[in-house]
């Protein structure tokens, strides 16, 4: 299995990369970590005529903490986030999600932006981004810079709001401040590091009385995109998240999921798994925040 022939261009600046995308339209693809794209090219599911390498753009590798969020360049490697104590403290859900992403060999190359841009429905970082309500910064030569909220970004399996002449340049990850915050990410896969049959993530905040003051949760691998449940989450504000309530909410959410069948798991089994995993992350995050 070898990739079809292509021309290679190493971009030395973002504008050079955007120029190449504008020039070649849908025939050009950006390559960063390559952990999704190169296997797709090997299997010839992707046959770009031009590959534009953005690995050496230092402007896409910066991480800054601003008021209320972390601004992360799209080419920051997954391993660098995983190994940053500061980021693990400010973005605990992202750190937990990364624990489930591939293996050390893939996280050393794989980028945060690449995982979001490929938007595999069972990938962990898109679920974390949606649960946290991240904002994605896109840029093109024709239309300049724009931002897209996570809930408008993931459109379907491997399908996002990124235009064919656009580059995902950065992600803003909201930081939850004040109060007692906890987050839990859980997943079931055939083997650790494989694609999830179902995954669940929750971040919540309790006030001084142990009542939920903020909460967001979601499911991965059981729909065309990761799923969040803002209406169900809103019902939990001001309540004590008891085990019984966690179970009810998890079952209501799982009932809204739209899992598919494949050789590893049937749709009913995935829906069952998602209820179990979501109940677990709700209960564990409530327990952790209360501790």
């Amino acid at each position, binding site marked *: 299995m070898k990739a079809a022939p292509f021309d*290679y261009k190493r971009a030395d600046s973002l504008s050079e990369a955007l120029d190449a995308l504008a020039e070649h339209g849908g*025939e050009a693809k950006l390559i960063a970590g390559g952990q999704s794209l190169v296997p797709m090219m090997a299997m010839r599911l992707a046959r770009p005529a031009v590959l534009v390498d953005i690995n050496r753009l230092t402007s896409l590798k910066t991480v800054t903490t601003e008021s209320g969020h972390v601004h992360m360049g799209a080419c920051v490697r997954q391993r660098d986030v995983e190994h940053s104590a500061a980021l693990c403290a400010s973005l605990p859900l992202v750190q937990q999600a990364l624990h489930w992403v591939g293996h*050390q060999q*893939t996280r*050393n*190359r794989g980028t945060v932006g690449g995982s979001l841009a490929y938007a595999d429905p069972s990938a962990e970082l898109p679920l974390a981004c949606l649960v946290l309500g991240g904002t994605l910064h896109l840029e093109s030569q024709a239309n300049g810079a724009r931002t897209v909220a996570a809930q408008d970004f993931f459109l379907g399996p491997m399908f996002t709001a990124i235009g064919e002449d656009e580059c995902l340049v950065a992600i803003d990850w909201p930081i939850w401040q004040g109060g007692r915050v906890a987050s839990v990410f859980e997943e079931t896969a055939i083997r*650790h590091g494989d694609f999830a049959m179902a995954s669940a993530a929750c971040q919540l905040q309790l006030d001084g009385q142990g009542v939920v003051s903020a909460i967001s949760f979601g499911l991965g691998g059981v729909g065309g995109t990761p799923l969040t449940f803002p209406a169900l989450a809103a019902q939990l504000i001001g309540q004590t998240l008891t085990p019984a309530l966690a179970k009810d909410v998890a079952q209501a959410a799982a009932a809204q999921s739209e899992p598919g069948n494949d050789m590893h798991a049937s749709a009913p089994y995935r829906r069952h798994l998602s209820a179990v995993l979501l109940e677990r992350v709700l209960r564990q995050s409530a327990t952790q925040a209360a501790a």
Partner: protein
Amino acid sequence: MNPNVKATMSTKHSLQIRVNGVNYQREVEPRTTLVDFLRDEIALTGTHVGCEHGVCGACSVMLNGEPVRSCCMFAVQADGMQVTTVEGLAPERGSMSKIQDAFCEKHALQCGYCTPGMLIACHALVAETPHPSAAQVREAISGNLCRCTGYQQIVDAVMHATAAEGANHG
């Protein structure tokens, strides 16, 4: 995408990669993967080609000191970088590293196909964590498939090689 406008020939790129301490300069097609470069261009066939789509880990090498899958990047992307392959793990020709010795001692290989990737994964772990737990070893080799050993002997080998001095005997 229109299949009629694909590139049929792609321009070769000149690149320089330092492999196991030796500089190599070659002209390659952009679609040459790093593992094919190592095996076909500079004849270092210790690194194995397995699945060629990032699943089996047989092609693992160190890139600037970190383990990566050499089938999941193109050689042109490694221009100017340093690579360590399985041939570069032993301290000198004719000898073996402590972990390689332990692989022999604990029967951590049978057919040997996964071994180069396993050795890279284990050396990378030990460079970062000199005395890993068995769970850490399992996590470090979780991206490498082995169809012979059942993995336990590989875990045993790393535990053997990294046990405190004096605890290896007996």
